[in-house]
């Protein structure tokens, strides 16, 4: 009689490991997350719309989005500079600085929050100095669509703590490692030969950087930017202290969620959350698609 056997795999443990993974993923992540979607599905559209289009929530969304965008944009050149120097130059203290890059990952956000707040407060190390140089910076504040097509107004801020500028500073702190850590390995692996090739073909150093190096780095810069942006959209711990939480002025969306929850307003909290969640999913999905696109062209 022929022995009966199923498709046998040489490496064992497929069923066990897959089972554990799916079960654990389901219990810890999928079921709780689905609660968010079911909860929001029970909301009617007008209910949802009332919550997310109220002036306070719109202001919070706008601020979250703006601050995250500004922070991610600032992190692009800063991150590129840091990654470049770490990857290309040898100098004393390089390894120390390289290790320090991950500080924002390792330092709990609450600590970062109170520290930044203190440094930038009027009596803090940097805050004091900013006062003496009469620092001021403009920011677009949400005003609401009261009859006009342009819902923002330009406001000048003269300090960092308790203003949108402070929020952006906290988000820059949080996002910097994302850009550095995506760009640095690409720079390290790139090798000098393509730059030497460009130089041998008569390109100036500047032309080489602009036409050869930068295009090679574009996928990494883009994903670093998007990762920093997505992280900043949802960031809470480092922002909650420095923002001061003035309604309509410095409340970011995650803070609104917490406030609604504190009053047991589950529906409101869920409505605000679902928009933020979808926005971060959208950003990360875009990164994924971009990376796939570059990978197909052999660039990732």
């Amino acid at each position, binding site marked *: 009689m022929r*022995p009966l056997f199923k*498709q046998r795999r040489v490496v064992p443990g497929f069923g066990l490991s897959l089972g554990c993974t799916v079960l654990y993923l389901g219990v810890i992540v999928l079921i709780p997350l689905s609660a968010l979607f079911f909860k929001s599905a029970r909301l009617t559209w007008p209910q949802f719309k009332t919550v997310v289009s109220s002036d306070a929530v719109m202001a919070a969304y706008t601020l979250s989005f703006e601050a995250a965008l500004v922070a991610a944009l600032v992190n692009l050149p800063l991150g590129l500079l840091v990654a470049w120097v770490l990857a290309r130059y040898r100098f004393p203290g390089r390894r120390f600085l390289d290790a320090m890059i991950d500080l924002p990952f390792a330092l709990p956000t609450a600590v970062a929050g109170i520290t930044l707040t203190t440094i930038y407060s009027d009596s803090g190390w940097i805050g004091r100095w900013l006062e003496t140089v009469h620092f001021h910076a403009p920011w677009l504040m949400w005003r609401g669509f009261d009859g006009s097509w342009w819902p923002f107004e330009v406001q000048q801020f003269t300090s960092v703590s308790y203003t949108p500028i402070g929020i952006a500073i906290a988000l820059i702190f949080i996002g910097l490692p994302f850009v550095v850590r995506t760009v640095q390995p690409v720079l390290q692996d790139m090798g000098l030969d393509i730059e030497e090739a460009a130089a041998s073909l008569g390109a100036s150093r500047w032309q080489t950087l602009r036409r050869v190096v930068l295009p090679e780095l574009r996928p990494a810069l883009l994903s670093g930017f998007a990762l920093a942006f997505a992280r900043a959209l949802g960031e809470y711990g480092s922002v909650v202290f420095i923002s001061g939480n003035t309604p309509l002025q410095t409340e970011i969306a995650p803070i609104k969620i917490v406030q609604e929850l504190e009053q047991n307003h589950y529906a409101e909290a869920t409505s605000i959350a679902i928009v933020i969640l979808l926005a971060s999913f959208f950003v990360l999905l875009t990164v994924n698609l971009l990376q796939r696109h570059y990978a197909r062209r052999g660039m990732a």
Partner: protein
Amino acid sequence: MSIEVRNISKSFGAFQALADVSLRVESGELVALLGPSGSGKTTLLRIIAGLETPDHGSGSVLFHQEDVTAHNAGQRQVGFVFQHYALFRHMTVFENVAFGLRVRPRNVRPDRATIRQRVSDLLRLVQIEALAERYPAQLSGGQRQRVALARAMAVEPRVLLLDEPFGALDAKVRRELRRWLRRLHDETGITTVFVTHDQEEALEVADRIAVMNKARIEQIGTPEQVYEHPVSPFVYDFLGKVNLFRGRLEDGRLTVGGSQFGAGAAGGEEGSAAVAFVRPHDVEVARHANGNSIPARVDHISFVGPFVHVLLMPKNGEPIEAALPRERWRELNLQPADEVFVEIRSARVFADDYSI
């Protein structure tokens, strides 16, 4: 220990790797599975080892008349040498070789002293005793190859299977190691099957060669049989260089331009297209015409080893390559651009349904 494979098929999704393949390897034989990449040779080897399962319901694998199809890789007692060696990178050479003994169930596991003795013997056999405490990353390719072999031999396998054993080595080491494998096989007498895409390697080492193409075994036989008497155009082409003459069958002979070849057992209908396969050393070059010969011009002459390779351009048709012994070439005093006549000493004609 003989190996028998009966009617094995294997597909990966839409790709058919093996189509109803049967093979018998006699006890103590050294057999090469030879073929281009994608021909199914590695899959066949892995099925013999139990690393791959044949398609559901197809065929069986027998070791010494015993059906082992349902046995897993660990139960089959095979020695398998992986293409990239698959050495355990965190273990020393000694620990790598000892692994197969150390993982045995307690009741059949040899004691420490025996394991130490057996491993030392094996390391001496493959002449790397001095490297016992090294890690794989500290070894050269040839040394890793020998560790892999010693590790496979440690479990006293009933058969030894090698997947492209010399594929990752450079040409010189490869030549040395394959002679050494042959001697090792003769000393130990273990039934051995190895996979290669290198015809020279197969011809030099193996007792018999199974030439594989497109999921099937095209021919199996001694090196002399497959080289001298290929049964298909594919085997002819895969084993060594070959000149092609395309023409039509007339009166049981192949007519190419003005020349004719005996078609032998080629089959095919009168007037149908056919191809003559001619090895370069079966091409003779002469200064004078001789009935059936083809006029050509000497295009290029190169000296490789004992033969002189002459590239000849006929008036019409493909270039012809001839391999002449050095004396013959000196005798003819050939120079580029000389007008000469080509004679075909022996040819094999196949119906033209094969394209190269």
